[in-house]
């Protein structure tokens, strides 16, 4: 069997997910031998920008016309497209204030020079193309990434986690940040994969992997309310990394509906 052809791309981003791939130091050589990396601008100077790909790994959010064009071209030439990191999956930090018009943002920063500038509210990849797999994380976790690539190489479907950080936190036998410390911890709402990194360092979860599917909002909100934490506080915190998933009006409506 020939090696799968892989492309690694960065749209508007901090390059953190690609850096995690580079930081797979001990496994990087194995990975580079197991797949055929055809296109990776961040790491290579000789790239084939036309060839069809078996797997495209795309980091970053879509925040300018150039990103949309690049993404559509990548989709066209790829069999499997993976959204890599929270920006690609949810829009990430750049999507935090999408409700503010870009012209207002630009004027705040650049005054009269805004006419040079083209910018769009940051969106996840799935707003523009079909995404086959989501691997969230800010940044992605090395082990999760390597597991996903191993699955592809074995012809398997990668295991996409859909349980909360709390599960991993319990396995670590951490003291609960919410129950015992009254902290605004995003663990119950956030998808696992990090091994409860922050609570294991005595720091409440910031929600950097984005939400799990079908979060049980009303139960979670009631639990936080019992600890004297308002829903607005939780929503504000969850909006840092996954604002498009946490539109406050929509959520509050849902919570009120459940409470009736």
């Amino acid at each position: 069997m020939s090696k799968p052809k892989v492309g690694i791309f960065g749209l508007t981003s901090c390059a953190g997910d690609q850096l995690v791939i580079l930081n797979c130091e001990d496994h990087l050589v194995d990975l580079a031998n197991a797949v055929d990396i055809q296109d990776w601008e961040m790491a290579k100077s000789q790239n084939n920008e036309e060839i069809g790909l078996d797997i495209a790994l795309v980091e970053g959010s879509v925040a300018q016309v150039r990103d949309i064009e690049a993404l559509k071209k990548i989709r066209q030439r790829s069999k499997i497209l993976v959204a890599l990191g929270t920006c690609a999956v949810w829009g990430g930090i750049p999507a935090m204030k999408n409700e503010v018009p870009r012209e207002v943002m630009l004027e705040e920063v650049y005054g009269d020079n805004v006419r040079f500038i083209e910018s769009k509210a940051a969106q996840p990849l799935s707003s523009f193309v079909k995404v086959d797999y989501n691997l969230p994380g800010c940044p992605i976790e090395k082990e999760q990434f390597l597991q996903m690539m191993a699955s592809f190489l074995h012809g398997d479907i990668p295991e996409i986690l859909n349980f909360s950080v709390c599960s991993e936190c319990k396995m670590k036998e951490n003291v609960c940040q919410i129950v015992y410390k009254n902290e605004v911890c995003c663990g119950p709402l956030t998808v696992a994969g990090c091994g409860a990194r922050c609570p294991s360092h005595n720091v409440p979860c910031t929600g950097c992997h984005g939400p799990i599917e079908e979060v049980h909002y009303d139960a979670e909100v009631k639990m936080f309310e019992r600890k004297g934490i308002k829903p607005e506080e939780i929503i504000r915190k969850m909006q840092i990394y996954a604002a498009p998933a946490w539109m406050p009006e929509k959520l509050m409506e849902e919570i009120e509906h459940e409470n009736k």
Partner: protein
Amino acid sequence: MKINKKIAIDHLGRVEGHGGIHVEIENGAISKVNMDIYEGSRFYEELLVGKHYEEVAGIVSRICAICSADHLLASQMATEKAFGVQVSRQTYLLRGLLLHGSMIESHALHVYALALPDLLGFDGVISMASQYPREVSIALSLKKLGNTIQELIGGRAVHPINPIIGGFGLVPTRQQLIDLKSQIEKGLEDALVTVDVYEKLLPLPDFATTPTVYTALEPRELRYSYLGDVIQTSLGDKFPVEDYRKVCHERVVSHSHAKQSLFANEPFMTGSLARLNLNYQHIRGAAQDVQKRLLPNMPETNILHNNTAQLIELIHSLERAIILIDQLLEEGVEQEAPIKITPKAGKGVGAIEVPRGTLYHSYEYDDNGILVEADVITPTAQNLANTEKDLRTAVENSMKLPEEKLRLNLEMVARAYDPCISCAVHLVEIEFK
């Protein structure tokens, strides 16, 4: 015959981010030298407004993955100053160790993998590995060592989570620090081996040598350090870091997506070479020996020697990291709660020397600890005007050379600055028509 040339380097390789160089020569005179920057729009300063002080550092670390620990530390420093918080000595030492971890990773990557291939005549580190396998393997192990330090102290190599306002979530154990120390000692031995290879490359080509103004933080104590409260310039000026805007007058230029900085209407340079030019008399240990071997005549005005200065600083950071661990072990490490914060309205400026130069974060908070205004000026943005100045010198000195050589010379100048384009363009994308 008068020279007419147009040089367009659209994709500058072996730098972080998307940038290019455009030069035009008409009738033997340079009519245009642009360092062009094309990178994404994220409006970080605007995103911070309205955020709670505990959330700010985590957000700004996402400006750039490679410099995430640096942004985090400068941010926490700014917030703590705004609230008048003094951290414990243990926190101070651990933060210093984290900063050295970032310095080791960044300098190792740039010196060996990005800059050295130019000087040794290779197109990249992979082709260099065939002839210099030992050096490339040392480079990778030093980069990994920098990550290991950031992983232990920061809790994550990219976008650290363990440093928090007022202290740390989890303090490393004595045994973890002892293990880390032995890894750093091995790294120091390795790094010193590469000095011999580097020394053979001297003297470096001097097609871009031109005097300029250098700026760096003045060390707090009489030793080489990346921390300070006063900005010094090679003209003899001194400003408290709160007056950083007097050093960095920002301007917008249409060919760059990042703002440029000027001091007294002139370009200036910040970074390893600037630090070494201003503070070399304080450097000690093996780093001092290497400085005397590689750069005996200070100050040095050849920008290509920024790479040499990085190599000297790499050794300095390895030595300092060992000293910091010794101090921590001697004074005893213990799990301690972060300093309790009482938010109050106020302003604070955090300034630290990071791999590419002085990084400034400035915040204003209200009484509830909600951020009202933020300003971030990165080293790469400060260096852009000076990069163009050096590119111009390089064009003047290389104009008659074959185009391929001229292009390489220009790329070498841009790369010498180790530009971090994600950082420089944390604000905005300018699509110029």
